[in-house]
């Protein structure tokens, strides 16, 4: 398929190798075998279309859908769709040197609004390129020093202000209000992303793709920190929870079955041996009685860590089949039981809304107070704990310098089979400021749990 390279090495091969290096740097495990596959695939295909090349690379080096966005970003940087402003802008240049200015901006916004209303993909792509070259240019002092800024371009054009118009247009098409709002926001977000992509392409042209690849690659959604995630990312994470729970549940059931080989079932074994002339070729076993834990989750829902608590609760309740019983409590400085919100088969979005609404019950003065919360929990819900219970405390252990009630936690810990503390902060931030990380960690083992990967790893070992 692919022989040894002979003769002078072409620029294409170098670009290929450096592209794969960039992918590896971004965390895609591209092996040498896959490298060769990619070359073989490219030589088997016609190259007229950029999309074909993209597909060939995607089929051979990207083996996980969650890595696809990273791949697409890097592909656009290393194999850009067009150079400079593209061929399309040439004819417009003749009509006059309209570069930047109030008139140009108004005209541009008008065209953008129309394109967004009709969702005209081609025009939108053209406008994104135009926006960067007209309004996002940052002239430098010398050659190679000029740059492009998506931020400046977006500030000038401010597509966010156009959402109202798009929503009106969508409503006119007969969609409901919620749908129209969602649709409008999505179209604007998509165009914003196009502008960002194009700015990246222009910068890559100026400074070389390697430079851009180092700067722009975001960690994939599973490795994103809960505490620093943006709103759009949180939405993506939430969508990731259900599949994650399903994957975990499948694996846990499989492992459970693999382990679950009980005592010999004599009757079935003898019965089965009849067909082999009385020789017991296969033995049959009774299923093992499943051993299941009870689980109590106690989570801090004060502003800073609320998102983390919600994710963990959703994941735990999605896996509730694996436990005998699950109870959940939320607290800020008062304890409130939220188990009843997690009805079997309930809608995820509703549960999240209910949880957010119930936060009010968990706060009395509204300042996180771990000591008070723990004491109240022991007073009111001490019966939730027992020798079969596993307790998980979720929170950043930042108690606003109040009393920590270490003794109460110690007695709670004694009442349970196991206890863990999940902390969404990086280990290096524990004990800084008002965090009582290591003081609580002396009593209850504290686990760093910053992203979905760490969270699923913890939940898996819990069951």
């Amino acid at each position, binding site marked *: 398929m692919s022989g040894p390279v002979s003769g002078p090495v072409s620029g294409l091969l170098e670009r290929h190798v450096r592209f794969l290096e960039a992918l590896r740097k971004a965390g895609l495990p591209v092996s040498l075998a896959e490298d060769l596959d990619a070359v073989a695939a490219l030589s088997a295909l016609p190259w007229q279309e950029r999309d074909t090349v993209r597909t*060939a690379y995607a*089929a051979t080096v990207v083996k996980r859908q969650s890595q696809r966005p990273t791949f697409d970003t890097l592909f656009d940087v290393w194999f850009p769709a067009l150079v400079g402003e593209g061929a399309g802008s040439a004819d417009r240049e003749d009509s006059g040197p309209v570069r930047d200015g109030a008139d140009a901006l108004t005209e541009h916004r008008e065209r953008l609004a129309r394109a967004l209303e009709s969702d005209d993909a081609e025009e939108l792509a053209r406008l994104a390129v135009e926006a960067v070259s007209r309004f996002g240019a940052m002239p430098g002092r010398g050659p190679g020093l000029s740059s492009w800024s998506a931020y400046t371009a977006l500030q000038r054009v401010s597509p966010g202000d156009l959402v109202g118009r798009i929503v009106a247009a969508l409503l006119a098409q007969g969609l409901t209000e919620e749908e129209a709002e969602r649709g409008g926001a999505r179209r604007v977000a998509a165009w914003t992303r196009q502008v960002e992509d194009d700015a990246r392409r222009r910068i890559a042209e100026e400074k070389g793709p390697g430079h851009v690849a180092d700067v722009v690659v975001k960690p994939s959604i599973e490795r994103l920190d809960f505490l620093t995630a943006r709103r759009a990312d949180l939405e993506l994470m939430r969508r990731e929870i259900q599949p994650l729970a399903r994957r975990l549940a*499948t694996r846990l059931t499989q492992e459970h079955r693999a382990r679950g080989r009980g005592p010999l079932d004599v009757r079935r074994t003898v019965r089965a041996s009849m067909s082999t002339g009385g020789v017991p070729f296969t033995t049959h076993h009774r299923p093992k009685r499943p051993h299941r834990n009870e689980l109590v989750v106690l989570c801090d829902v004060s502003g800073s860590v609320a998102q983390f608590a919600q994710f963990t609760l959703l994941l735990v309740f999605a896996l509730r089949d694996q436990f005998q019983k699950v109870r959940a409590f939320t607290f800020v400085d008062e304890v409130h039981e939220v188990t009843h919100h997690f009805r079997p088969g309930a809608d995820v979005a509703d549960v999240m809304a209910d949880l957010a609404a119930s936060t009010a019950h968990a706060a009395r003065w509204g300042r996180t107070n771990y000591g008070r919360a723990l004491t109240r929990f022991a007073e009111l819900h001490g019966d939730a704990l027992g020798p079969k219970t596993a307790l998980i405390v979720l929170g950043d252990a930042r108690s606003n310098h109040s009393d920590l009630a270490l003794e109460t936690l110690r007695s709670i810990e004694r009442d349970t089979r196991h206890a863990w503390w999940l902390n969404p902060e990086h280990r290096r931030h524990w004990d800084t400021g008002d965090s009582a990380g290591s003081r609580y960690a002396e009593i209850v083992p504290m686990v760093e749990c910053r992203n979905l990967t760490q969270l699923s790893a913890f939940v898996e070992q819990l069951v």
Partner: protein
Amino acid sequence: MAWFATPDDVTTRLGASGYLADHATATTTYLAGALEKPLLVEGPAGVGKTELAKAIARTTGAELVRLQCYEGLDEARALYEWNYKKQLLRIQAAGDQSWDATHDDIFTDEFLLTRPLLSAIRRTEPTVLLVDEVDKTDVEVEGLLLEVLSDFQVTIPELGTVVAVRRPLVVLTSNASRELSEALKRRCLYLHLDYPDQQRELEIVLSQVPDLEERIAEQLVATVARLRDLDLKKSPSIAESVDWARTLLALEVRELDDKAVDDTLGVVLKHASDHERAIRELRLRR
């Protein structure tokens, strides 16, 4: 024999057999044939992963050998098995024949029960091997697949190594309910199938249910797109769109209005909570 001439050839031939492939699907399928590498297809349930393998088999005139994976699948049911009972009979019937002769006798083709993987490799005619829902198997079975998928050979200790006379086109499908091993993924080409855009879905629905009026099909596809936009537990798949189209045809629905959608929603949404959400967000009941 090459499986396909060009990626465009894939599109036209699959299209003729009733499978409308998009650009990425056609290109990757072509590559699977041209590079003789297995094709791993992932994606949500009901987007036509299994159907792709069937369509390839139909259009190339190859026979489809299918290995349905499930938990607890083992070598004996995936590769081959010795027919113990027949061997026992043979030994009992041997009478005073010497042991050596009997021994040589009972490990021959006659006593070998071939299972899908071995059958696919031994066939001399063109074959499409479909390993369905590979994520349902245990991790050990993946190890078993490795030899078959990379070298197209199977080693039977008593008989030696069976090498494929003619390499089958292998399609593996997975719902990603479990992460497959790197070793397996490395040997495969990867294709992620997702819900199609409205235009393509319309074509699919019309090609599957040709009797449906185009206007209703358009309404149906638009509604399905709106449903996928909602935050549902299980978004409706292509298979469900097609089912819905058949339902509407059978019920002789002339206009897909809110009431018609409400009455037949059970065909596309299979969770009670999804039902409630759809009714609320699409304002089906006023």
